[in-house]
């Protein structure tokens, strides 16, 4: 076994623990490229992937696409809310002097 494999296996076990999924399923999804085991959001992404597949009847390819799009929307929404908060502060008049 190459050292690289060992890391992936250990990581799959940790991910399985965090997501409550079966380790074999986690390994299969890592191998298929559905999730990067070293990404910071690997566990929530994996759990979401399986929930979407299970609840919406998506296949794994569809669930992977949905996860990518949802992550992208999260990112855009976070950016929008930062911009809006900034704009609100800039637009606010300074303390009025009577």
């Amino acid at each position: 076994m190459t050292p690289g494999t060992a890391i992936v296996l250990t990581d799959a076990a940790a991910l399985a623990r965090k997501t409550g999924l079966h380790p074999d399923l986690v390994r299969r999804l890592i191998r298929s490229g559905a999730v990067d085991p070293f990404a910071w959001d690997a566990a929530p992404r994996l759990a979401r992937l399986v929930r979407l597949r299970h609840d919406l009847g998506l296949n794994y390819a569809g669930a992977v696409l949905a996860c990518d799009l949802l992550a992208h929307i999260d990112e855009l929404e976070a950016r929008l809310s930062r911009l809006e908060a900034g704009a609100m502060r800039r637009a606010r008049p300074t303390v009025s002097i009577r």
Partner: protein
Amino acid sequence: MPVAFRDYYEVLGVPRGASDEEIRSAYRKLARTYHPDVNKEPGAEERFKEISEAYEVLRDPENRKRYDRLGANWKAGEDVSGAEGFGGFGRGQGDFGDVHVQFGDGNGFSDFFENLFGGSGRRAGGFEGFSVRGGDQEATLEISLEEAARGGHRKISFGDGRDYEVDIPAGVRDGQRIRLAGEGGRGAGGGPAGDLFLRVRVKPDRRFLLEGRDLFVELPVTPWEAALGATVEVPTLDGTVKLKVPAGSSSGRRLRLKGEGMPGPGKQKGDLFATVQIVVPKKLGKRERELFEQLAEASKFDPREGRR
């Protein structure tokens, strides 16, 4: 114990005679809209649970038949506990009486469902041993600048009956998230629950402008205070401090009060900047006018010099 009737057809928006295909397609469509991974609106998870429960019953011919036997005259919410054919199934089925405990996936199906089907109507999931962690949820927590500075307790209620007492750490910053572990979406098949994150929004303050850890406040002064120098009171987060305005301060001059800004992690503290703003009286008294006129006569000062 009264048990509220659930109109599963109404939940899915299909007629009682709907085909399996129509039911599946209605479920898929609603599930896509209300799935808690897709829809972050409060109440979406509750709605999704209702939809899942309805589909769980109507997708299966046996369960659907059992449900239909209750009759078509019930209205959602009516007490169905005394109805014929209700409550006799599921729970009392000897060997199977405990099955739903094992299969119990924490989905929190209604009393109505549990009474009608007990454990026997529930499938274990898509495949044997299916279990998965619940989704993370996020909500916004609006706090005042004072609360952000001092920290404190906050009671939070969600429409679905969840109540929390949250500790707001002193010096929390706008956009930071407070994590409530295990309070997010429920896991399925014994999987752990997700986390609930409260994203902090510091409300704009009437007096202070917040930039990072620094606070900015306007400091109105009279023309003579600005010209001659003066000691004036400046509001801070904790009260007021006396600040010396140096002689010859024009509007816009920033005076720094070290460590009077927002507290940070550890001992770091932001600063408070008071921006001088010269204010003249709207109406001058007789004596004031005379003195200003004398000043205008005597002074050679021209702030616009060099512009021409």
